[in-house]
C-alpha cells in the first residue's frame, strides 16, 4: 500500500506539527523552569523562523535535556527533540567552553583518568577541589563525581578473556561504551558472565569510539561525526561476521540506532537492526526458547525499576523488566516514568544544578518512600544522579541478572561444555 504520510513529510518534519501542545505537558524542563521556551516553541514553531533567518535562534534552547519525552508524547510523530538538537548544533556557541568539551569527551577524559584513578577519585571527592572546579569551570560543587576504575574493562578483557571467548560457537559483539570501560568495568564483566553461561562468546570491536551522546548534546558535532563514522565501520565489520551488537547502556544504544541518522545525518540503516540492548538480546533468546536461564534459589531482592528517558524513547524497558521478573526471588516495583534530571552531562553544569535536582525530586521522594535498597536502570548517568540524591544503590539489570543466575545450572541447561 502506498504510504502517503511517509511521502509528504519534509526532511525536518516540523510541518507535521498540528500545534496541539501535548508535548508541553510532558517536558520535564518546562515543569521546573517556566522560562524555557518549551518543546513546541523551541522545536517546530521556532524552526519555521530559523529557516528564514538564523537570528531567531533562541538561547533558551540550551535548556533542552534531549530526553525525547516530547517525541514519545507527540501524536503526530514530530521529531521535536531532533529538531532542537540540530538547531543547537547549527546555531549554538561556535567555540564551546572548555568545561563542556571536558564533560563531553567522556572517552578522552576517561582514558586519562583511569591511569591515575586513585588520585583522580580522591581528588574529585575533596571539598576544596570541588570548590575550585565550581569557581573556575562552573562544574557544580554539590555534584558527586563518578569514580574511575584503575583497570579499564578493555584491558581486563584482553588480558583475561579474549582467548577463551573464541571457543564459543556463537558470538556476540559488545559495545561497552565509556561508562563500562572507564567507570564501572564490573558491568562489562557481568555481561560476559551472563552471555558465557548461555553459550555466547563475547567479542569487542577493534576500535570502538565513544557513541557520542554527550558530544551531540554539547554541540560538538564534528567530533561526534568522526567517532560515529569509525563506530559504523566497526559495526559493519561485526555484522559482516554474522554478529549482533549489544550494549548495556540505553543512551549508547539509542545514539547508535537513532541519533547517527537523525542528528548526524549518517546512513546507518544497514546495521541499525543489528544493534540491541543486552536485555533485549537475551529476552529474545529466552522467548524463542533458544536459551534458558536458571536462577539461584537463595537469591532475594526488592528493587524498583527506573525507566530512563532514552529507554522510554526506545520503548525497550519492557525487556529489562521482563527479564528481572523471571527471577523467582525478585520483587520488582515500577517507578513512575519520569526524568531523573541529570540528562547526561547537563546536571554537572553549575547553572543547571538546581533545575536538575528539582526535576528529579518527585522520583527521589518516591524511591525513599518505597524504602527500596536497589534501583534498577539501564542508564549510567541516571545511576549517578539517583545514587547521589537518594540512599538507594543503583544497578544495571544485567548486573542483577549476573548476581541472580545459577551459572552451573544455566550452563547445563544450555549445553555449554567446559572449555
Amino acid at each position: 500500500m502506498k504510504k502517503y504520510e511517509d511521502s509528504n513529510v519534509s526532511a525536518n518534519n516540523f510541518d507535521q506539527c498540528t500545534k496541539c501542545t501535548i508535548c508541553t505537558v510532558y517536558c520535564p524542563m518546562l515543569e521546573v523552569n517556566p522560562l524555557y521556551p518549551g518543546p513546541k516553541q523551541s522545536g517546530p514553531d521556532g524552526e519555521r523562523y530559523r529557516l528564514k533567518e538564523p537570528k531567531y535562534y533562541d538561547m533558551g534552547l540550551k535548556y533542552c535535556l534531549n530526553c525525547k519525552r516530547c517525541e514519545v508524547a507527540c501524536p503526530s510523530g514530530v521529531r521535536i527533540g531532533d529538531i532542537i538538537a540540530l538547531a543547537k548544533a547549527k546555531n549554538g556557541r561556535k567555540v564551546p567552553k572548555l568545561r563542556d568539551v571536558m564533560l563531553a569527551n567522556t572517552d578522552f577524559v576517561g582514558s586519562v583518568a583511569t591511569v591515575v584513578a586513585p588520585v583522580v577519585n580522591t581528588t574529585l571527592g575533596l571539598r576544596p577541589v570541588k570548590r575550585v572546579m565550581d569557581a573556575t569551570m562552573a562544574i557544580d560543587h554539590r555534584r558527586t563525581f563518578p569514580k574511575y576504575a584503575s583497570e579499564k574493562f578493555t584491558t581486563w578483557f584482553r588480558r583475561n578473556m579474549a582467548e577463551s571467548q573464541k571457543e564459543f560457537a556463537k558470538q556476540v559483539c559488545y559495545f561497552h561504551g565509556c561508562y563500562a570501560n572507564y567507570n564501572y568495568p564490573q558491568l562489562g564483566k557481568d555481561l560476559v558472565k551472563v552471555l558465557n553461561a548461555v553459550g555466547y562468546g563475547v567479542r569487542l570491536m577493534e576500535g570502538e569510539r565513544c557513541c557520542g551522546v554527550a558530544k551531540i548534546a554539547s554541540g560538538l558535532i564534528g567530533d561526534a561525526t568522526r567517532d560515529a563514522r569509525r563506530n559504523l565501520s566497526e559495526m559493519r565489520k561485526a555484522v559482516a561476521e554474522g554478529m549482533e551488537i549489544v550494549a548495556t547502556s540505553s543512551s549508547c544504544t539509542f545514539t547508535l540506532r537513532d541519533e547517527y541518522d537523525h542528528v548526524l545525518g549518517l546512513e546507518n540503516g544497514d546495521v541499525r537492526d543489528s544493534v540491541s540492548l543486552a536485555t533485549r538480546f537475551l529476552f529474545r533468546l529466552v522467548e524463542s526458547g533458544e536459551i534458558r536461564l536458571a536462577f539461584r534459589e537463595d537469591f532475594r531482592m526488592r528493587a524498583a525499576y527506573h525507566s530512563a528517558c532514552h529507554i522510554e524513547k526506545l520503548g525497550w524497558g519492557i525487556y529489562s523488566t521482563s527479564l528481572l521478573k523471571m527471577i523467582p526471588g525478585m520483587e520488582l516495583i515500577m517507578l513512575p516514568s519520569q526524568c531523573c534530571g541529570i540528562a547526561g552531562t547537563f546536571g554537572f553544569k553549575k547553572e543547571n544544578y538546581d533545575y536538575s535536582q528539582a526535576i528529579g525530586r518527585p522520583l527521589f521522594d518516591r524511591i525513599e518512600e518505597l524504602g527500596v535498597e536497589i534501583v534498577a536502570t539501564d542508564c549510567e548517568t541516571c545511576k549517578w544522579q539517583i545514587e547521589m540524591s537518594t540512599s538507594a544503590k543503583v544497578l544495571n539489570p544485567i548486573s542483577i541478572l549476573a548476581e541472580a543466575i545459577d551459572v552451573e545450572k544455566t550452563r547445563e541447561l544450555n549445553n555449554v561444555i567446559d572449555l
Partner: protein
Amino acid sequence: MKYDVVIAGGGLAGLMSGIALAREGRSVAIISFGDSALHFSSGSLEMWNDAEGALNSVAANHPYAIVGTQHLDRYSRITKDIFASAGEQLKGEYGCNHLRISPVGVLKPAWLTFDDYFVFDPKMTDGGGVVVVGIDGYLDFYPDFIADGLRRKGVECDVASVSLPELERLRESATEMRSVGISRLLKGDAVERLAHQMAPLVHGAQMVIMPAVFGLGDVDGRQRIERVVGCPVRVAPTASISVAGVRAQKKLVEEFRGLGGTYILGDKVVSCRIEDGRVVGVRSHNHGDVEFVAKDFILAMGSFFSRGLVATPEEIYEPTFGAAVVCAEKREAWCAERILEAQPFQRYGVRVDGNLRVEIDGSVVENLYAVGSIVAGADAVKEGCGAGVVVATALMAAEQILGKELDVKEMN
C-alpha cells in the same frame, strides 16, 4: 511477546477495552502512538444531543445500532465504575442529559461529566449570584462568555479576576500562560493566597466558576479554595490542553497498569501477520523483529486526528491493518461546502460486522475488532455522540472477546 489481547491505540477507547479485559484477568498490551485526544477533553462525555429522542431510531449502520441501544444503560454504569476505580468520579447517567458549558459560554447537552465541572441546574435562577473568576492575562478562558451564557439562562452572574506573582511570570515564557503551567503552580500556599484574594470578590455568591486548572499541582486545590470562599467552586473548560483530560488519562493508564496491563507509549503497529482469517501477531516500529502475539486484537487508533485514518487527494485508508473503509469514492463528496454543515467525512471509518470485526482483503478477520472513533457511521459533531460511541464499542469488543457480559457494579 505473548498476550491475550493486543490493542493498537491508547486513548479512551483502547483504555476502556484494556481495563475491562484486564479486570477479567486477561493479559493485555496497549501500543499507543503518542498521547490521545483525552488531552482536549471538555470535561464531559457526550452520548447523544437529544437523549430522550432519536437514539432509538439511529440508522442501521450507526455504531449504536451495531452495539444495540438496549446495552447503553449498562455500558454507562460500567464506564462510571471504571472511572471511579481509577479515582475520577463522573456525574450524570444514561437517558437524562445535563447541560455543561463550553469555553465560549454555550450550554450543551452532556451525558457524564467530571465531578468538579460546572453543570447547569435550573434551580440556580433563584439562588443568588454566580461569580466567574478568571486569571489575569490568561487568554484561554473567557469569564465574560461564560457569564453571558449563564445570564441567558436567567442566572445572575458576575465576573472577577485574580492574579499571583508566580502566575504573572508565566506570561514571560514563550509557551505563554497555559492551563498546564498554571495548574503546576497551584500548590501549597499559592492556593491559599489565591483563595484569600477571591474571598471578598465572591462574597455571598451561591457558586464560583473557575477555569479547569486543577490537577497537576496539589490534588485538593479546588476544595481548599471552596473552604476559604465558603461556597461551591466548580470549573469550566479552557481552550487548548485540558488539565482534567490529562489527569484522567494518567489515572486510567495507572489503573490499567495496576491491573497488570502493559502500556507502551510512543510506538505504533507497522505490520500484521494474518493466518487462516485470523491475526496471529503484529510488529511495531520500536520492537522490530520481536512480534506481539495474541489471541485477539483491537484497533482503537482513533480517526483522522490521530492518524487512525489517513486521507490523501485520491483515497481514504486505514494504515495500521489495511482494513476496509466506508467512504464515498469521489473526493468531491467527502466534504460539504459550508463548514458548519454536516460533513460526510465525519461518518467515514472502518467497516465492521455485527460483532465489530473488521474486514481485510474482502473477508472478515475473526479476531480483530475496531472500537472508538475509527468505527464508521457516526457524526460525533452533529450527533454529539463522540464519547458515547467510544465507550459503547470499546466495552462491546471486550465482551465479544470475553464471551460474556461485563458485570455491573452498583454504585451509591
